[in-house]
């Protein structure tokens, strides 16, 4: 009795030049081939749809900004790294294929690491970088990490650490270096990418003008009425706005904590950190 004919392939993908040994199991070969083809796909389809990518400090109003941009344009909110609980939010290559199929607005706590910059260049993205006064961000982060078990990319406190003073201390000792590295990486990335910096204070003081400048940067024209309608539709609870005001940091931190922040900033000799509220 002859064996039944093999089933027809239901999904196939062209192999890039480098592939696994053909003797390997087909599932492994298929996955390997697919993963390796993402870069080629990004190169050919990166400009099929418009994308707005916001690289942001934690607690910088990024959810508010991204939600407003998505509502004003109708673009889909999209995470370029949706699975990072306590990981850095570097671009996850496997998230790129679906990104390519639709207009998107993304917000990520993403440093301008070499590979992130390479992906953004390949995709033709002109990123928006949202930063905040570091003292304000630290105080807001302290409030944010208060629930037991909360974790973030900037620090990895034990899940059972409930002492607010320990959490505050970690938010400074681990969080401030993260924010300085973030800011200096994006300043350096200007050599390779068209980057537009936005501060939290600008965004809160005049959201319409700030958002208009963002649209101009990414090459879009969106009427001011559409922006104001989007802003009016947003409830503070859905964008996790904490207090929505600047200047809390220096008022609520102790003199010793302020000195610690400044000591950490003092290790950065080459960059002007005044945009994030630190002495240069």
């Amino acid at each position, binding site marked *: 009795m002859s064996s039944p004919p093999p089933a027809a392939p239901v999904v196939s993908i062209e192999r890039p030049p480098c592939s696994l040994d053909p003797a390997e199991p087909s599932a492994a070969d298929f996955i*390997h081939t697919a993963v390796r083809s993402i870069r080629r796909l990004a190169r050919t389809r990166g400009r099929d749809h418009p994308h707005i990518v916001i690289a942001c400090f934690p607690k910088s109003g990024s959810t508010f900004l991204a939600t407003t941009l998505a509502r004003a344009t109708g673009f889909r909110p999209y995470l370029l790294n949706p699975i990072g609980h306590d990981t850095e939010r570097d671009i996850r290559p496997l998230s790129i*294929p679906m990104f390519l199929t639709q207009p998107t607005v993304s917000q990520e706590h993403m440093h301008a690491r070499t590979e992130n910059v390479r992906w953004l260049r390949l995709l033709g993205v002109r990123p928006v970088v949202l930063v905040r006064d570091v003292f304000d961000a630290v105080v807001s982060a302290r409030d944010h990490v208060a629930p037991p078990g909360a974790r973030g990319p900037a620090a990895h406190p034990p899940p059972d650490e409930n002492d607010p003073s320990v959490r505050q201390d970690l938010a400074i000792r681990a969080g401030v270096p993260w924010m300085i590295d973030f800011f200096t990486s994006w300043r350096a990335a200007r050599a390779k990418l068209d980057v537009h910096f936005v501060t939290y204070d600008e965004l809160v003081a005049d959201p319409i003008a700030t958002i208009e400048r963002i649209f101009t940067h990414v090459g879009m024209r969106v009427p001011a009425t559409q922006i104001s309608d989007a802003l009016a539709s947003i409830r503070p609870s859905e964008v996790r706005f904490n207090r929505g005001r600047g200047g809390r940091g220096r008022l609520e931190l102790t003199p010793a904590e302020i000195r610690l922040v400044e000591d950490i900033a003092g290790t950065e000799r080459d960059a002007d950190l005044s945009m994030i509220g630190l002495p240069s």
Partner: protein
Amino acid sequence: MPATVHQPVLDRALRADVERWRARGVPEPIVAILVAERMIPTLVAEPGHRHLLIVPTPGLPTTGLRRLTEMVTGLPCRRLTRVAGGADLDEGRLASFVAAPAFAVAPLRATIDAMRWLRAVNARPIVIVDDVFDRLAAAADRLAGDDDERRWYAVRRLGPAVVTFLASWRTAAASLPVHWLRTRDLDCDPAGVVRRAFAHAGFTPDADTLAAALAEIDIIPREIAMPLSGEQRAAVRDLARAYAELDLSIAGL
């Protein structure tokens, strides 16, 4: 020749998603990648090839380790992290890693996500630790500038990554078979230390090959030029204060 997936490999839910993506007009190469992504958990869960995962503390030199492992095991080295020099595991790279015999040397942090994947592939990582104060002083040695400035830079800017790395693996060791390799133990018996570490991961290195590799490749970290000051050491201990519940003495804390 294209790589293909046949009908029986796709379960019903995935087949339905394929139809949905096609109906939405998602281009076929993108459908293929989305299918591949969904197949990764199945692939990595299948018992397969032997792998060696070496996880050095951030900043430890890794070139010698790579060369030594290549010589001793004959396996190719693969990258597991999402970005070069990064600390986060990329599941796409993990899928390629498990598809053929290989080893990796990566300063992975034991994040929730990484732990999920490493448990799925039954990883038996070898975590290499050094005295944290020496590690930061060694990092300062490689920087330019005034002695004190370089050391403060290492403590303030690089210290958090080293301390959170250690804390994450001390936590992870409760649910993953971790072998701790202390660099200071390499001083007296490098062959024994390496042999025990590789044995933990299921490899028995040939004694002659290992001896020849150790004669050729220096994997012992260099002496530091200038140790951290008392104040700098106190700042490192302050960093670790949030992990008081964990025993970090293996790294001198």
